[in-house]
């Protein structure tokens, strides 16, 4: 009995050890189109589309239904949380269940380069050259392209498509500011100085989802302003350390933020929805968010209308203009290993056509991605103010901050805001985190 059991266990080891443990990664499970029975037999195609557009989920279903009515191709929309989208896509590749279309969790850079290199984010350049690209502003196409000689070794080209355009600025509660007798600030330091008056008026001065992506996004405003584009590129390309003076000066802004008691209590571990909730419920006077937030506010509190937007004010310690994240908004890509990639491309082309974009923009309160759709007269005043600063959007650099460094920066800024670390210490940690 013991011998038989031992034999079975040994057999199990042999089988598992011989199953290509070192050279062959798990089945990535996509078929070539010619292997797909549905394509061969003409059966209806169903595309699976993963997205995180919580506030626009019904609109996406509406657009999918319209596309199916027109073409017979069904698009199955699946709503996921932004924070886990990348991880789920990664896992789905390994299990052979990857979707056909995905709303990208990040733009062109470290977080998507590997996928593009392996073909999971499809190169759309040939389709763009065939005329699709004419719909977009050149800057929008540049923002979704891997450039020639990029550091990741990805074949140059357009890899994603913008569904909308947006930018991120500071939304403020006009009632709160009026009550505190304040106007939108002209400098970062003036903004910090408004904290006391806003607290006196019963508001937390500023909320932002600093537990996750909103913190490095906010930080980027002042990296552009204080560090500047030339030093940024040098640092990201390894020619300048994060311990250099401009970076320490940038990190020092968060010391000023802490000393001014500017951040809402608990905001360091708030996600973006929690911060938005504070803002729409008149508990926070200002919020760092994107133009898509208008649609979010509409769904959270339709009666909330007393807000406007101002550009993040530059610091007196910075000599470069503040550049805001934005331009292309929600980005979509086609799974290049999908059996239905051609149908997926066709759906994206339909989604970025004039009619679909007009429907999308007016229903979702987002700015459209293509030319010739946005009519400034038809935009709400707040959306018009967002749109007015599309020229202040940060341009794409040839390199980006590595994810490990970004994590060190995020954690480090949290600790600066808590007073437990100095800018110099965080700068050293960022430098040490370089892969």
């Amino acid at each position, binding site marked *: 009995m013991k011998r038989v059991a031992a034999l079975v266990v040994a057999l199990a080891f042999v089988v598992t*050890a011989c199953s290509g443990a070192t050279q062959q*990664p798990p089945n990535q499970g996509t078929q070539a189109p010619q292997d797909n029975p549905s394509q061969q037999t003409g059966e209806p195609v169903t595309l699976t589309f993963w997205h995180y557009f919580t506030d626009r989920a019904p609109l996406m279903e509406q657009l999918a239904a319209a596309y199916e009515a027109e073409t017979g191709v069904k698009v199955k929309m699946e709503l996921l949380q932004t924070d886990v989208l990348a991880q789920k896509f990664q896992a789905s590749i*390994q299990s052979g269940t990857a979707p056909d279309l995905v709303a990208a969790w990040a733009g062109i850079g470290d977080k998507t380069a*590997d996928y593009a290199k392996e073909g999971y984010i499809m190169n759309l350049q040939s389709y763009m050259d065939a005329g699709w690209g004419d719909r977009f502003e050149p800057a929008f196409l540049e923002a979704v392209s891997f450039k020639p000689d990029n550091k990741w070794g990805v074949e140059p080209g357009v890899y994603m498509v913008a569904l909308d355009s947006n930018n991120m600025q500071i939304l403020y509660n006009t009632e709160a500011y009026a009550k505190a007798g304040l106007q939108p600030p002209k400098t970062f330091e003036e903004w910090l100085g408004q904290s006391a008056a806003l607290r006196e008026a019963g508001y*937390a001065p500023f909320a932002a989802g600093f537990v996750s992506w909103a913190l490095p996004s906010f930080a980027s405003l002042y990296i552009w302003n204080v560090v500047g584009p030339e030093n940024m590129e040098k640092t990201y390309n390894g020619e300048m350390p994060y311990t250099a003076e401009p970076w320490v000066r940038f990190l020092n802004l968060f010391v000023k933020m802490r000393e001014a008691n500017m951040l*809402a209590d*608990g905001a360091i*571990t708030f996600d973006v929805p929690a911060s938005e909730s504070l803002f729409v419920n008149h508990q926070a006077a200002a919020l760092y968010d994107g133009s898509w937030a208008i649609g979010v506010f509409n769904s959270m509190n339709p009666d909330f209308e007393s807000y406007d937007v101002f550009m993040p004010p530059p610091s007196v310690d910075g000599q470069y203009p503040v550049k805001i994240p934005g331009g292309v908004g929600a980005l979509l890509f086609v799974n290049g290993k999908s059996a239905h990639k051609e149908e997926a491309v066709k759906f994206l082309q339909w989604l970025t056509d004039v009619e679909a974009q007009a429907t999308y923009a007016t229903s979702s309160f987002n700015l459209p991605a293509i030319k010739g759709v946005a009519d400034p007269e038809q935009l709400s005043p707040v959306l018009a103010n967002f749109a007015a600063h599309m020229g202040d959007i940060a341009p794409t650099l040839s390199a980006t901050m590595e994810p490990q460094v970004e994590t060190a920066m995020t954690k480090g800024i949290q600790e600066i805001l808590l007073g*437990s670390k100095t800018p110099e210490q965080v700068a050293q940690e960022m430098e040490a985190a370089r*892969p």
Partner: protein
Amino acid sequence: MALYTRSPQAPGATREVAPLRRRVFLETLGNSLFILPALVLFALFSLYPLVRTVALSVTEWNGLSPTVKFVGAANFVAAFQDAVFWRGMFNALLFALVALTVMNGLGLLLALLVDNPRIKGAGFYRSIYYIPPIMSPAVVAVLWKWIYHPYSGTLNKLLRAVGLDSMAKAWLSLPETALWAVSAATVWQGVGSPFLLYLAGLQSIPTDVREAAVIDGANSRQALFYVTLPLLAPVAVRVSILTILGAFQLFAVILIMTGGGPGYATEVPMLTIYREAFDYQRFGYSTALSLILGVLLLLLSFVQTRLAARFGGGD
């Protein structure tokens, strides 16, 4: 029939042994067939992942590329120098200490109360105390985030209502309170498990042992400390091992409540492992970290079992 062979030359000896051996073989084969499905499942879901983990841990792989680069012990060398990982291990140790004392202590107390024949409705209490452990960690995390919300959370509202405004704070955002706040949530969720195990242990203690103690003049306190608790020692060892394993594998609750922050105040090893694999796409390094964690937990369990056996708690 003779069970033992006689001299090999003895006529009939082979004829007597052969049917016996055949019967034993058939019996063994039958038994093996019964356990084969379990062995296959074990091989598929435990052995295979283990072998893959060990194989990946000596490689550099981004989870996507068809090629995998062998790097030898480099991942392990880097892991032993990874300050974030060891900070997470220290935090996990703190979680384990809170769980061992507060959670298990509370579990034991509840079990003693429910086991008391004077308490009615034992079945009801058994059910409600076991609801939190079967709740999704995500639900528990969101629930406790509401409780700890600095502006509209139940805890701060309660403190302000009783005039303790100065104690109302951003519980999850301060390094001095974040870890303990998350601990409270995990204790709340986890107390049902030791409670159930202790209750089962109490109910397995023969009643005549307790009666004998009473007859010998022991009061209830003496019976508890000198009879009941010593007999519960094997259960306590098992509960402790499970508690430590659970504490070191905390993940979802922390990811949702604090993301490991503020800073690294609530960082735990599973979060680091997850981030290395899925944020940085360093699968080789991530599996090396998970192997180190696994080996350390194995050693801890082994030491605990040996100590318990030495001091009379093992079985």
